[in-house]
């Protein structure tokens, strides 16, 4: 007891200021914008649009057969469901492998357009909370090598009103730069930055190596396999991966235990696809990747509830992202 008291009293002698400076508070609060998909400082979802080149008939036939024979009984036959999931992931890998690789100029920008939805909550008088799914149209421009500032535009899905505009600082020689090319102001002005490249040339291009990469680069408190699946989602969301890299991701996931075939789904953009899910039992959610049922092109992703929560039922979507376009352009704001 005495030693805890001694440590406590010693601590009290070290106290000075009561809290952060008003400037530090201001700078920190200025960074709180955006919705939850971002896993990098205000850098939205990474993602990959459907590269809608029609793949050969074989893959489509496989998925069709799988859907008919397995989807209905998915909850009673998990092993078959996982085998089916692996089949579709391998077909997605094969689809990617057949795509051409463009020349990539580090000075350009990756442009990604998508429809993303999130649950928005409102606290109502009387202690009640209102929940609703809120879909947004997103356009994001990201510097290929991360050295230049990018841009994110968002507005409600279907809206023709003004875009909400968020500048995404670039990082050159350890210093943040804004859209005007001048040093950007931000919470860690004095600190050195690390560029967030929208394209990473050194990612593995072979499924086995990618699988090791996913496990080695996973951070988080989920079970290892679940975390590897989540890391894959983070790796491809609103970024550019070459067909070989992206194919390696899907090929790697085919060998991650725990995935299951969710079945036919319609994504936020109204396209029909097939979803492969990784249940996150501890959280009562499931992460899904969605592929075109015929070509196996990657369409997007979503998070689904597997337990009822507040006004939501098990099976309701909590967030989703439907990728529409991925392209290279010369400057932020430019449409392909």
């Amino acid at each position, binding site marked *: *007891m*005495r*030693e*805890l008291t*001694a*440590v*406590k009293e*010693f*601590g009290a*002698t*070290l*106290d*000075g*200021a*009561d*809290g*952060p*400076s008003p400037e*530090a*508070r201001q*700078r*920190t*609060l200025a*960074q*709180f*914008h*955006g*919705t*939850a*998909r*971002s*896993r*990098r*400082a205000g850098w939205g979802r990474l993602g990959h649009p459907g590269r809608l080149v029609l793949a050969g008939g074989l893959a489509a036939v496989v998925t069709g057969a799988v859907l008919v024979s397995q989807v209905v009984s998915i909850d009673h036959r998990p092993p078959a469901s996982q085998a089916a999931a692996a089949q579709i992931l391998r077909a997605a890998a094969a689809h990617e492998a057949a795509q051409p690789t463009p020349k990539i100029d580090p000075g350009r920008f990756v442009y990604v357009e998508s429809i993303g939805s*999130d*649950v*928005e*909550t*409102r*606290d*109502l*008088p*009387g*202690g009640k*909370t209102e929940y609703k799914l*809120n879909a947004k149209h997103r356009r994001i421009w990201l510097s290929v090598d991360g050295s230049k500032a990018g841009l994110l535009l968002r507005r409600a899905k279907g809206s023709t009103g003004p875009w909400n505009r968020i500048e995404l600082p670039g990082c050159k020689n350890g210093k943040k730069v804004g859209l005007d090319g001048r040093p950007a102001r931000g*919470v*860690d002005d*004095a*600190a050195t930055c690390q560029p967030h490249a929208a394209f990473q040339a050194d990612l593995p291009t072979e499924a086995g190596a990618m699988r090791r990469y996913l496990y080695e680069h996973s951070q*988080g*408190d989920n079970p290892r396999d679940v975390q590897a699946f989540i890391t894959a989602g983070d790796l491809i969301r609103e970024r550019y991966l070459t067909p070989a890299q992206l194919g390696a991701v899907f090929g790697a996931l085919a060998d991650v235990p725990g995935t299951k075939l969710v079945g036919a789904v319609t994504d936020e953009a109204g396209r029909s696809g097939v979803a492969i899910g990784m249940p996150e039992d*501890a*959280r009562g959610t499931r992460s899904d990747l969605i592929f075109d049922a015929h070509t196996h092109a990657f369409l997007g992703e979503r998070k689904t509830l597997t337990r009822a*929560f507040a006004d939501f039922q098990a099976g309701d979507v909590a*967030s989703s992202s439907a990728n529409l376009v991925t392209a290279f352009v010369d400057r932020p704001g430019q449409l392909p």
Partner: protein
Amino acid sequence: MSVHTTMLADDVGARPDDAAVIRASLGNGECFSLLYDRYADQLFRYAARRLGPENADDVVSETFLAAFRRRHRYDLNYLDARPWLFGILTKLIAGRRRAELARYRALSRADATEPVDDGLASRVAEHVSAAAARTGLVRALTGLAPGDRDVLLLVAWNDFTYQEVADALGIKLGTVRSRLHRARERVRKALGDTNPIDFDEEK
């Protein structure tokens, strides 16, 4: 913006718990500022004690930015976000171990050279023994394994329960107990206690 305004409005009956704030921030990032205003001061004081006030502003900012980026992974079953935030802060402090140890060294040096400001003999004796105890304490803290120090300081300085420490650091309850036990043993020895009684009061 409407979400934020609504949440801040006085007519919201009960104070929304941290999980509700984080949930709201998923749709509207600005709601996260409520969490900042709830916890920034506590985090700052703790960081300032361990790293010195000159590092505290930065590390608290970083804590909230990291928390903000990871908020979609927050387990909303935990209504109280304090352990989560202190867990992030602890990791960031671990990245500045050199600054922390330098601070402790400076503290023990400052004590040794601090002039006695009172002429009364009894006060002098008291001061000298307090300074000696302080030097021993600082040395003990410096000598602790980092994980043991994390547990000890969360308990002693923030009144964390064993469960909160376990949640914050992502370790088992048994590990919390054994780390705390080791740390207390060490401090007890540094304070010159020759008759240690093992307290294991559960909070």
